[in-house]
């Protein structure tokens, strides 16, 4: 682990995410409009000084809706991801530690079955049968989003289990708990965090795509996904309606991707001979 200066993309990513978080959490500071209040005279007006990102078809200010809506989107996505991460970490740790046992085999089979369902397909079935809402989407996330974390954790545990440091700790009398916390977890944390930044980005993109299609959060709640669904109807006449949420989604995921790549570069750089 050679730690030189943190690379540019890591810094850029952290800056972008911080700015977005500040804007979203401090929404009342940055905009005085109520996200639900309608101004029918000003409906579908483009970007102006009064309405930074214009108004939607009901005359609601888009900038304030984007900021307030960001709270829902970001909070729920983040929470969903954290839950998936923890679940995946636990499952990965246990299957890795007890690899080869019935428990491990069963869990791996379950993983195989889950991986046969693309997120989109599962989301479509669940929303068709149980109704469209953000909660239902997050439920689907809870079912399948832990899998990449579990697989990564498990593969690292399988590898580390056989290393000298673990053997030495065992001989010295370490019990399983000590081995997990001293030897395994430190080696798992970094790759999992890197994966988490990328997965959070993918999660936000997937949920926004489904909401755009009408399967996610329903209006009038301001939420980036539902705002996209709202603006779709009048897109060709008033394309600016999608600008607010789309811009923020792109910036958030961009920031997360920069962070992920930056972390990876920072902690695992290559050194090659010149040809």
């Amino acid at each position: 682990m050679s730690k030189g200066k943190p690379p540019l993309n890591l810094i850029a990513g952290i800056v972008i995410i911080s700015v977005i978080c500040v804007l979203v959490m401090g929404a009342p500071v940055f905009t005085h409009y109520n996200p639900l209040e309608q101004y029918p005279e000003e409906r579908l007006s483009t970007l102006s000084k009064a309405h930074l990102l214009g108004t939607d078809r009901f005359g609601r200010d888009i900038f304030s809706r984007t900021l307030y809506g960001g709270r829902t989107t970001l909070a729920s996505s983040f929470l969903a991801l954290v839950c998936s991460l923890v679940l995946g970490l636990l499952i990965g740790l246990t299957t890795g530690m007890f690899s080869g046992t019935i428990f491990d085999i069963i869990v791996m089979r379950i993983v195989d079955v889950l991986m046969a369902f693309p997120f989109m397909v599962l989301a479509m079935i669940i929303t068709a049968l149980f109704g469209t809402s953000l909660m239902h989407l997050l439920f689907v996330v809870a079912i399948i989003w832990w899998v990449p974390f579990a697989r990564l954790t498990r593969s690292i545990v399988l590898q580390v289990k056989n290393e000298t440091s673990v053997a030495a700790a065992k001989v010295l009398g370490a019990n399983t708990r000590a081995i997990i916390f001293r030897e395994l977890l430190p080696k798992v944390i970094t790759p999992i965090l890197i994966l988490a930044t990328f997965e959070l980005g993918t999660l936000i993109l997937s949920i926004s795509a489904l909401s755009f299609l009408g399967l996610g959060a329903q209006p009038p709640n301001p939420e980036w996904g539902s705002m996209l669904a709202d603006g779709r109807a009048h897109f060709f006449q008033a394309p600016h309606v999608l600008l607010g949420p789309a811009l923020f989604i792109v910036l958030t995921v961009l920031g997360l991707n920069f962070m992920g790549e930056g972390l990876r570069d920072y902690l695992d750089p290559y050194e090659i001979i010149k040809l």
Partner: protein
Amino acid sequence: MEDKTILHLQDLCVSYVQTGHEVSVLKNISFSLKEGEVLSLLGESGSGKSTIAKTITGLLPPSARIKSGALTVAGHLRVNLTQRAILWNKIRGTVLGMVFQDAQLALNPLFTIKEHFREALITHKIGRASDVLPTAANLLKLLGFTEPGKVLSSYPFQLSGGMCQRVCIALTLCLRPSVLIADEPTSALDATSQKEVISLLKNVQRELGVAMLFITHDIAVANAVSNRVMVLNEGNIEEVGETQDVFSRPAAEYTQKLLAAHSIRTTVSAPQGLDAKPVIDVVDLNKAYSKNNSVIKDLCFSISEKEIIGVLGPSGCGKSTLAKCIAGIEPINSGEILYRGKNLVHLRGRMKRELCRHIQMIFQDARASLNPRYTAIQLVQEPLNYLNIGNKKSRKNKASTLLKQVGIDDAAKFRRPPQLSTGQCQRIAIARALTLDPKVLICDEAVSALDVCVQTQILELLVHLHMEYGFAILMISHDIRVLRYLCHRIAVMQCGAFCEIDSTDAVLSSGKSPHTKRLLECVYEM
């Protein structure tokens, strides 16, 4: 035959840039190599011997800086090594050929051996396309292969380490280089393969008249292989001359130190009247990784209190697995392991940890056995924390005392493994193992990865601690010299069983089993 100089290196200075500051690795290295001669570059790790090889083939990493140096090869090719753009392709392969330490990794796993040869020969336009296979087959025959055809159609993963190295040598030689640079070519092989490869290498070198630059850390190998030897220490040339002269009448102090470390003789005498009661009893031990893969078969032996017993054997014979089974970190299929009469096999959890604390282990890769996030003194206290012994103060005191005993001074106490040398890491591992007052210390190739001088220090430390604390030692090694120095008894292991177990003198002077004889033959004596 006139002795022409085929390679001459003048005033080479190289340094590496690491995290901001520059470290000088080679200081004013100059030497010549004559046609057909074998020159050994002898030195410990960090001496710069590999750097020399990488410099003259242009394989240095981007963090290296060549301050000065001029290379003259084959009389007419003059290269100023400090230039940025050097036409290496004129030299690499056809003038200077290189063989690497890990042969299996030096071959592309997805190409057959045939493809490797074809690519090399066709790229350098040596002979016609139809000559490739016969040329390759002839070279492989020279290197001891009876069925070159089969080898040529194989992939590298299908060959053993020794076979891969012979293939690599043939591959390098098919381009007819004037100089063959061998960078620790046998260090990754076991004793039998090593002897095989070295004798074949010598043969082929003599037959083809190729000059050879042989890089090694092993004095005995350098003695067996080379005409002249150059001793390197920390980037400086300590001594250079005819092999016989240098090793019989070493002028430099460093060379004398190396020779002394290499030929250590026993100073430890067997303790009077070893206790009849054994501290460890292994009864009918069987271990198999899968149905057809039996690693240890019906093994029986015992270790007496305060005894030092060695286990000698080639890699893959099961000696490391045996060590792990006795230490309790590897489950066994059947049999008993008794510690002072109590069976350890079926114990679990707390009971197991309480009893197994008396059997401790140190490993081959000392650095890997230590958690890099903790300081030396924290590491030594680790086992006391695990078993909840004493309080914070008493643990710290015990750790300090032990660290002092193993030779770690107060400054190093608060450093972490990445900032410590390999020798220091092993010392810390030993101190840590002694924290629990073990009655048995298992050393799994504990000195094999150390430089020969550090090896001697650690072995002397073990002897000293053995006399003071009186624990038994089970020493696993493939190196006869180490066992000769340390052990009262030696067990020779082959394919999961002991073919011989007797006192050191008996085993080493007149090994009864043919396997032992073969192992003894592979040792290079000076």
